[in-house]
């Protein structure tokens, strides 16, 4: 029997629509959101599609409520998602912290537009990547993925669900307005080829269950609502049994684990795409829509015999520190085009540790770099 959640076949759809299809294919059955350009199409697609698979789509009163609702739904056992853009992402930060603290699997999509504030509602930006890393107060590890095409909006939304279930945290899909609104061919594979990961579940009897006792992988098994475990889930610092414990030792154990569960698993999480890096003297490091212009620039320059390569970041967080460090040891220059005043470029420069020069190509938003912008910078450093 065919699965109405997986529209196997070839489609010509936008990145936003592909994101919604990826979510449903991954098993998402609860969406809560609030309209905002340029992410509204995700909510619209979810409103149309979720009932077809007996899922629930609700438009909440704001983005604060949207995140709160998907956290609640996740504790109800559902895979859940919300989608927004900059101003909504800012509102979400409070409950993103709750999701991190309570280790609640869910997916939060941010289709980035130009900011700050209302900024450029209909035009592209990439200036929320540091907000995704550090936006909610306190320390915690994060996972953020950066799709560069509608096909990747589909693939990486599935991946985001799988990572959120594996590592028990809200995972970010940091799309951008261009990728969200562009239409391209999207291939949805047969249902049996779609990998779906389910959260680790508690199997021990309730009397011996400790809801925040993690094993060596640092991920505690989860007991959802109504399963007889009588779990207390709190945003307060809590001990392994989930009770609030307002002490430095409890905080040290908990927060360090929240960070380490991503740090120690970083090599399993990180994905990059590498193009012509073997002998590259200049390396373009790009992500999202910007990587499309970077790819073109690298192809054109390689055709001219220039030693240039591309490191495309698919995972923004955790940052591929080791690979960037290696490349800094090999190349003379790392070129970072991004649609902001320099965010990932700081990470690149930090990891380069002075071994290679970092060149930032900032754009404040509203448009994308042309391949020629990137080529001009590369030619300057390669000459």
């Amino acid at each position, binding site marked *: 029997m065919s699965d109405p959640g997986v529209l196997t076949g070839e489609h010509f759809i936008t990145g936003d629509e592909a994101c919604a299809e990826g979510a449903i294919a991954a098993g998402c059955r609860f969406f809560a959101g609030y309209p905002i350009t340029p992410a509204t199409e995700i909510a619209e697609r979810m409103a149309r599609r979720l009932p077809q698979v007996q899922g629930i789509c609700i438009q909440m009163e704001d983005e604060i409520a949207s995140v709160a609702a998907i956290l609640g739904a996740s504790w*109800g056992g559902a895979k859940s998602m919300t989608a927004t853009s900059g101003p909504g992402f800012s509102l979400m930060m409070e409950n993103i912290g709750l999701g991190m603290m309570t280790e609640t699997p869910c997916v939060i999509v941010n289709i980035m537009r130009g900011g700050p504030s209302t900024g450029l509602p209909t035009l592209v930006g990439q200036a929320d990547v540091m907000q995704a890393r550090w936006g909610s107060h306190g320390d915690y590890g994060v996972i953020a993925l950066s799709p560069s095409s509608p096909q990747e909006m589909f693939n990486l939304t599935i991946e985001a669900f799988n990572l959120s279930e594996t590592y028990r945290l809200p995972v970010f899909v940091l799309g951008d307005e261009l990728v969200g609104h562009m239409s391209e061919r999207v291939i949805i594979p047969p249902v049996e080829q779609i990998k779906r990961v389910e959260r680790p579940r508690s199997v021990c009897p309730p009397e011996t269950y400790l809801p925040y006792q993690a094993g060596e992988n640092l991920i505690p098994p989860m007991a959802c609502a109504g399963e007889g475990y009588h779990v207390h889930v709190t945003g307060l610092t809590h001990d392994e049994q989930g009770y609030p414990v307002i002490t430095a030792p409890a905080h040290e154990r908990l927060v360090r684990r929240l960070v380490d569960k991503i740090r120690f698993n970083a090599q399993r999480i990180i994905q990059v795409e590498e193009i012509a890096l073997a002998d590259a003297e200049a390396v373009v490091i790009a992500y999202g829509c910007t990587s499309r212009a970077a790819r073109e620039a690298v192809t054109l320059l390689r055709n001219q015999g220039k030693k240039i390569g591309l490191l495309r970041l698919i995972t923004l967080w955790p940052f591929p520190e080791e690979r960037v460090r290696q490349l800094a040891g090999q190349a003379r220059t790392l070129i970072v085009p991004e649609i902001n005043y320099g965010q990932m470029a700081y990470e690149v420069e930090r990891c380069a540790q002075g071994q290679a020069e970092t060149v930032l190509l900032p754009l404040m938003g509203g448009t994308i770099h042309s391949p020629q912008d990137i080529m001009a910078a590369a030619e300057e450093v390669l000459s």
Partner: protein
Amino acid sequence: MKIRYQPIVPFDPEATSRLKDEQHGLHPDDIFLKPGRIPHIWCPGCGLGVVLNTFINGLKMAGIPIDKSIVVSGIGCTGRVAGYLNLDTYHTTHGRAIPFATGLALTRPDLSVSVFSGDGDLFAIGGNHFIHAARRNVNLKVICVNNFNYGMTGGQVGPTTPVMAKTTTTPYGNTEHPFNLPYLAHASGAVYVARWTTFHARQLVTSIAETLTIKGFTFIEVIAPCPVGYGRPNKLGSGLEEMKFYRENSLVENGADPREVGIALKGKIVVGKFREEPRPTFLDEYEEQILKKFRRTEG
């Protein structure tokens, strides 16, 4: 960079277990309380113990199994109720208990989801969520413990503080007009609206049990003493004296017009079950109008 960590003090499950077993189980209602969580953090004379107890008795009266009963709370003194109950309990962020509970209730309609929080949490920072959940008629049982101030932070003015009441942030008296909570709940669409004080423990148990057995967004306001945060600056006396005040100044008026039940400083308190007006819930409508269309018939 190199990292030199502080040493970790490991979790001691045995010590925790000892703490949990000590004296737990001596009272028959201990099955409703999380082992090792008592004594609670509330001040002497606080009304929250009464409300916790009446909730337990409401659960018993309604016959809701503890495995199927969920409590979601916000932040503040009342928000701590969740942590004491031996149910699946969720202590969320300030003001966000209702939207969190909305997600939970919609995905698990087989569970009974109650929201426990204070007047500041539910009606200041969370006011927008309250009116929208009531409008949608999400199947949530909201219990608001109204002590007329922010107790946890030491007695600041809140959205229910009566005119000219003194708090630490209204040292010369409050000049803002407070919400009349039953009126707000009724106008927003709550299917059940009641108010009791902590003096009316038996009526409160009945009301809680009633809300647990009907579907839809229900609202109970519980007027509770806060002798430390609110009673002292307003010269209301101890918790016991506040209970005496409730006895002498409460007027039981079931079916009272919610517009007429506003509360003034040291004024009469109208209590009772004001409204019960069932209508289809969010999920009833979503199921009937939308999900049914896409349900595959068996065989």
